[in-house]
């Protein structure tokens, strides 16, 4: 496959940045998208040019590092995959592919396609945990019976890998799908009840302080989420937040 790549190049956080065109040939349809970028970078290095900086780590859809906005969609045109799981067979010979970083005020660009997602870390620090002493006196997991439906829903919420595709896809750059998944995974379990009020208030307050937008329920986040996190989690977070607000 021969492709034209239009890639966002930005030398650093303070650089203005621009889209740059690259031609790449002999791309195998069996390559992953990141492997295709590896080939491009090899060519750039051989020519003495600066390689394209992009995030990646596990390359098996678990870590949430790869974060590319490809042809106008987070992680490209495929569904329920991260960019490392996207294969070049999803594209046609002669295609032009736009590759951009996540765009959000709360995700500033560090270099080229790499953005700073530490705002997600700060939201997690604000309440995405339970205060349980696990050093040597951990209870058996089955000692607290949990309804199957709740256990499943909590697990589904916990599959969020924090990649930020929800923010990137949302026209408002809202982080509500991410935050709601983190709130839900504890709200559905008895272990999460002790700190439930503080958790949702602190996490939502931190989300707002980071400069993410307001959710307007377009549902784009749910469609583009590589882990299929449901909008039901946002409704649950809204309920938890209102409950916590009335408790004061």
């Amino acid at each position: 496959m021969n492709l034209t790549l239009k890639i966002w190049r930005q030398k650093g956080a303070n650089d203005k940045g621009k889209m740059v065109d690259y031609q790449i040939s002999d791309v195998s349809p069996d390559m992953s998208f990141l492997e295709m970028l590896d080939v491009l970078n090899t060519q750039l290095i051989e020519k003495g040019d600066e390689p394209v900086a992009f995030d990646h780590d596990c390359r098996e859809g678990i870590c949430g590092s790869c974060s590319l906005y490809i042809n106008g969609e987070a992680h490209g045109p495929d569904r329920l995959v991260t960019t490392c799981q996207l294969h070049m067979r999803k594209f046609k010979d002669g295609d032009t592919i736009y590759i951009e970083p996540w765009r959000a005020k709360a995700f500033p660009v560090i270099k080229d396609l790499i953005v700073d997602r530490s705002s997600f870390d700060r939201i997690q620090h604000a309440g995405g945990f339970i205060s349980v002493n696990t050093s040597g006196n951990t209870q058996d997991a089955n000692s607290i019976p949990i309804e199957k439906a709740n256990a499943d829903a909590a697990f589904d919420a916990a599959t969020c890998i924090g990649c930020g595709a929800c923010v990137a896809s949302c026209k408002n750059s809202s982080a509500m799908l991410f935050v709601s998944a983190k709130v839900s995974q504890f709200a559905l379990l008895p272990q999460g009840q002790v700190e439930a009020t503080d958790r949702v208030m602190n996490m939502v307050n931190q989300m707002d302080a980071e400069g993410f937008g307001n959710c307007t329920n377009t549902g784009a986040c749910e469609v583009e989420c590589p882990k299929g996190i449901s909008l039901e989690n946002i409704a649950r977070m809204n309920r938890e937040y209102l409950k916590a607000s009335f408790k004061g």
Partner: protein
Amino acid sequence: MSGILNSSIGRKFAMALSALFLMVFILQHFAINILSVFSPEAFNEASHFMGTFWAVQYLLQPVLILGVIFHFVMGFVLEIKNNNARKVSYAKNNGSANSTWMSRNMIWSGGFILVFIVIHMIDFWVHEMNVKYVAGDMTGLIDPTDPNSGFRYYEELVVKFEPIWRVALYCVGFVFLSLHLLHGFGSAFQSIGANNKYTKALKGVSKVYSIGIPAGFIFIALFHHFTGTH
């Protein structure tokens, strides 16, 4: 509860409550207007009641006006805030791949509805206020000095829908209302946290309401235009 309107979820909740209130109002408005098709007498009676009953005039009407203003102001405030959350736009963004046109363009459908409401208020509400509270005529009669002249409401409605330009304008307004409701109806329930086993059924109700009510209003406008005796 302090500062709930300063939070993203609090603003969503307030926006949804005002939307639900306005949807109930639209339903009530439609219920009275459709009477004009079947029974001018019933339409006149209902209009006179709504136009003169103290609780409607002095309690519900101000609440409605505040609700409309709040919904629009909050809508524009949220739009500005949301635009600020993304300083640099994508060179290529395929929004239609993951969301509906209606959901992405609520500010535009809402803006056109605002223009329509202003025209509608000038057409009907300003006239009503002039007759009742400036001229002081609370009789609702065609000729206030003649008790046998009958109520004026049906006559005024038919006259309003004589010009085709006004009918066309109202039809366009209702199309935008329909587009707005097609996303807004379900969105309001999601915002108040109601996403559960009833959501699928609610989507059906949403479609019936969002298409049926504006289509009904269009029917009323066309009916009076084509059957009006003036």
